[in-house]
């Protein structure tokens, strides 16, 4: 035994002398999408991490300069595939801010419903991803399977499972189909039952606890400055949510809580998300209860000749990953002068991740990335 320990120490010393470079991605099952993290490791401790992105750069913002204000809207949902609705929402609201277009009350409620359903769907995917990154695959089978029921609702309402292209300037594209409210409520009942099962499997699981507690800690006093947003920031014990701070649509008329957790580690972030799933279900129930009747769409003019006044606007939405914003600038023409997307992953996935990974274990990289909500298509656009 003693001999073995000496041998191990020798190996570690050798390693320290010469740090190894380890490439994680772009083809790697643990990475959250098509990106790469270049790790300098000593033993299995990371001493330096550099992210490399650009594998998904489609130049959306360039393409939007060539498309008119309505055509641009169809590209938006591809910005972040797991949760496209906040992007559509931000764009729609930015255009409405710039143009001064009114949105009917019913449309606002439908939008909130869409956003919350998208949040739920995205969290379901996160459940799978976060556990998958720790080798707990049952959770993925459950939550990603259950996510299909939310996608079914989307399909019913918008006509598409993943790409909804539903929230557009002026309101939403279609009204509820018949009997949709009941379906939503039934799905919520089902999910409520299921999240309890998830708790048993995930939060009470010793493996999950041990692998997440104390890993990837973000210091509370630095969090805002580092650009941390969303559930990750709330996991540092800071109560910050755009839905409350900079309220949009009808969130100020709905009753919900913003959960926080102390610690700033993966575990705390997981706890926040666990609560948020419940809050989302609560919001959806309220929306179904309170939704007024009336118009769902304030029609835009002929899209070929639709111009926006000169100026710019920035609208942001609270997504699962945090602040998702769209900046638009108009030169008074039928096409945007500039559309610029701000995703939470732009900060989380690059500077924050590079910061956090230092000193961590190679095996935890995937778990940390998942807990930050790193979404490469959002970084690169």
């Amino acid at each position: 035994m003693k001999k073995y320990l000496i041998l191990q120490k020798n190996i570690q010393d050798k390693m320290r002398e010469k740090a190894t470079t380890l490439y994680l991605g772009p083809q790697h099952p643990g990475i959250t999408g098509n990106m790469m993290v270049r790790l300098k490791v000593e033993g299995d401790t990371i001493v330096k991490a550099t992210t490399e992105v650009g594998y998904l750069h489609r130049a959306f913002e360039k393409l939007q300069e060539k498309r008119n204000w309505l055509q641009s809207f169809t590209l938006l949902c591809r910005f972040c595939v797991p949760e496209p609705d906040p992007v559509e929402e931000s764009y729609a609201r930015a255009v409405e801010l710039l143009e001064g277009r009114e949105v009917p009350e019913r449309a606002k409620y439908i939008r909130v419903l869409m956003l919350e359903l998208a949040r739920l769907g995205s969290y379901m995917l996160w459940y799978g991803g976060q556990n998958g990154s720790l080798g707990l695959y049952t959770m993925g089978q459950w939550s990603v399977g259950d996510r299909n029921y939310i996608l079914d609702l989307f399909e019913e309402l918008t006509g598409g499972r993943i790409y909804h292209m539903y929230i557009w300037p002026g309101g939403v594209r279609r009204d509820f189909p018949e009997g949709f409210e009941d379906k939503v409520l039934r799905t919520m009942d089902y999910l409520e039952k299921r999240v309890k099962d998830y708790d048993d499997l995930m939060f009470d699981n010793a493996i999950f606890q041990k692998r997440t507690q104390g890993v990837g800690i973000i210091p509370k006093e630095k969090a805002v400055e580092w650009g941390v947003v969303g559930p990750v920031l709330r996991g540092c014990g800071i109560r910050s949510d755009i839905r409350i701070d900079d309220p949009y649509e009808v969130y100020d008329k709905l009753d919900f809580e913003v959960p926080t957790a102390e610690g700033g580690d993966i575990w705390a972030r997981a706890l926040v998300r666990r609560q948020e799933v419940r809050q989302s279900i609560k919001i959806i129930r309220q929306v179904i209860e309170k939704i007024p009747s009336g118009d769902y769409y304030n029609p835009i003019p002929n899209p070929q000749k639709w111009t926006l006044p000169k100026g710019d606007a920035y609208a942001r939405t609270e997504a699962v990953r945090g602040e998702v914003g769209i900046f638009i600038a108009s030169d008074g023409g039928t096409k945007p002068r500039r559309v610029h997307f701000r995703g939470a992953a732009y900060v989380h996935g690059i500077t924050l991740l590079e910061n956090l990974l230092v000193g961590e274990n190679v095996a935890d990289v995937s778990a940390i990335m998942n807990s930050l909500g790193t979404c490469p298509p959002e970084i690169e656009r």
Partner: protein
Amino acid sequence: MSFFDLKGTVKPLTALKQFGKKPHTISYPKESKEAADRYRGFHYNDIEECIGCGNCSTICQNAAIDMIHIEGVEGKKGDSGLRPRIDHGRCCWCALCVEVCPTGSLSLTKDYLYVSDDPDSFLWTPGVDNPEGKDKISFYTTNEISLNDFKRIPMPELEGMERVKSFAEVVLGYNEEQARAEASRCISCGLCTEACPEHMHIPEYINAIATGNDADAVRIIYDNNPLPEMCGKVCTRRCEDVCAIAVRGEPIAIRWLKRYATETALTSEITREIVNPEIKEANGKSVGIIGAGPSGLTAGYYLALRGYDVTIYEANAKAGGATMYGIPKYRFPIDSLDKQIEYIQSIGVKIHFNTKVGKDISFKEIYDKFDVVFMGVGFPDAWSLGVDGEDAKGSMQAFRFLHMVNSGEKVDIGDKVVVVGGGNVAIDAARVSRRLGAEVTILYRRRVEDMPADWEEIEGAEDEGVHIVPQGIPIKVHKDEKGHVKSVEYLKAEMVPDERGGRPKPVAIEGSNTIIEATSVMAAIGQMGDYSFLGKEFEDKIKIERGRFVVNDKQQTTDPKVFAGGDAVNRTADAISAIADGFKACKAIDEMLSKDKN
């Protein structure tokens, strides 16, 4: 946390309670879930309903839609004959094409499955390649959720009873904001240009108005129409009949937009400044034109621009022909015609007024003096009713009546007027009579919906209190002792479907005689030409058939040196056709004469 965490180890095992439960797996392909009622799958296009406007192809941000010729679809007015084909290697199923389809023929279906090892097999013509899609339509538009704006911006007008007090212009015209909004409805498909006899560049000038470049709009309009203000007010606007938006809504107000554009140029000098036409150097050739109506003025204007020496002979004191004397001034005020005539004269067109060919100057003289002669002589005479008592005092031609009123003469019509006919002339005569203070009844052989007059005009007449009696055939005009009109007797008619498939014919019902009291009767059942001015020599040379000159497709009569246009040539008998004739003749004359030169 202790090293051995009992709860944490046991709790996950509760997952075992799922054991033995029926899985929620959809075991595709054995079973498959039906797509939602609103699913955005493959396209389906109703080929019959589609008019090939190409709006889907324009909105597609992926350039996925091509407009192609397909078998069995021929182009006609209001249908380009092209149909969309979707490249599924581009499509993203956003359904914007469905939302902007003006006819609603394009929709998406529930089908979405297509797997192939051949990448070239992803080009589909919806509706042709998937006829079965008709039963699976899922994502479609209705009038409520379309991205097209089907509601026209209402034209501000004088109130019905306010109008009859004077000859003030009824239609007030769009202001800038209204014009921009109306122009923004246009989808720029260009189907309208084919229906326009003159093929004006309609999508282009509407687009110029929509983007706020009124000057460019005026320039585009003057490219092939020197009388746009007249057209903007009184055109029969066939373009609006074939407007793509009109399939499900109200057509774009093309005429009113043209009117708006030309009104931005307030005077003839400003028009000259804006249009700034390029006038070619004089080439020494001369053209004589008979009649300063729309066709003559058009030919004169464009020939003058091309460097010809143009002289127009006009019998009346003012230019404009039927548009001056046949159209009442509440529709087309004199000063707006004057403005255009002034502009045309400023280009170098010489007009000799009060010079009737055949009386003041002989046709032979003109024929010999000029290199080419163009005749835009119009129809100066009208058909008579052909019933008993038509010679009574107070029985007149509506056409003559309008002529007299427009040239400022006083006409005594009494207080009860009966107008016979259903065309624009009948309605005009009726509305003018209203303005002169008479009670007016229009007697028409067919139903109101069969009236050839503009529906706007008919509505306007009704607003002003004109009484319309449809399905009435006049048989006699009764005279009083002094030989003055006393009443009109007519038979009621019923509509009998035409065996040959034409429009239904009115057949008089025996014994249904009805009498309306009247102080004047006006016949407005058509006009005819008077070609006596030609003289013996030319009547043989220039062939006339069924009251009209015979011309080839270049407006050339049987005498190669003589061209003709306007009402005396075409059957449509409206101003825009006359302008088209004039323009065509101008091009042909230019071609002929410049060939001579070489």
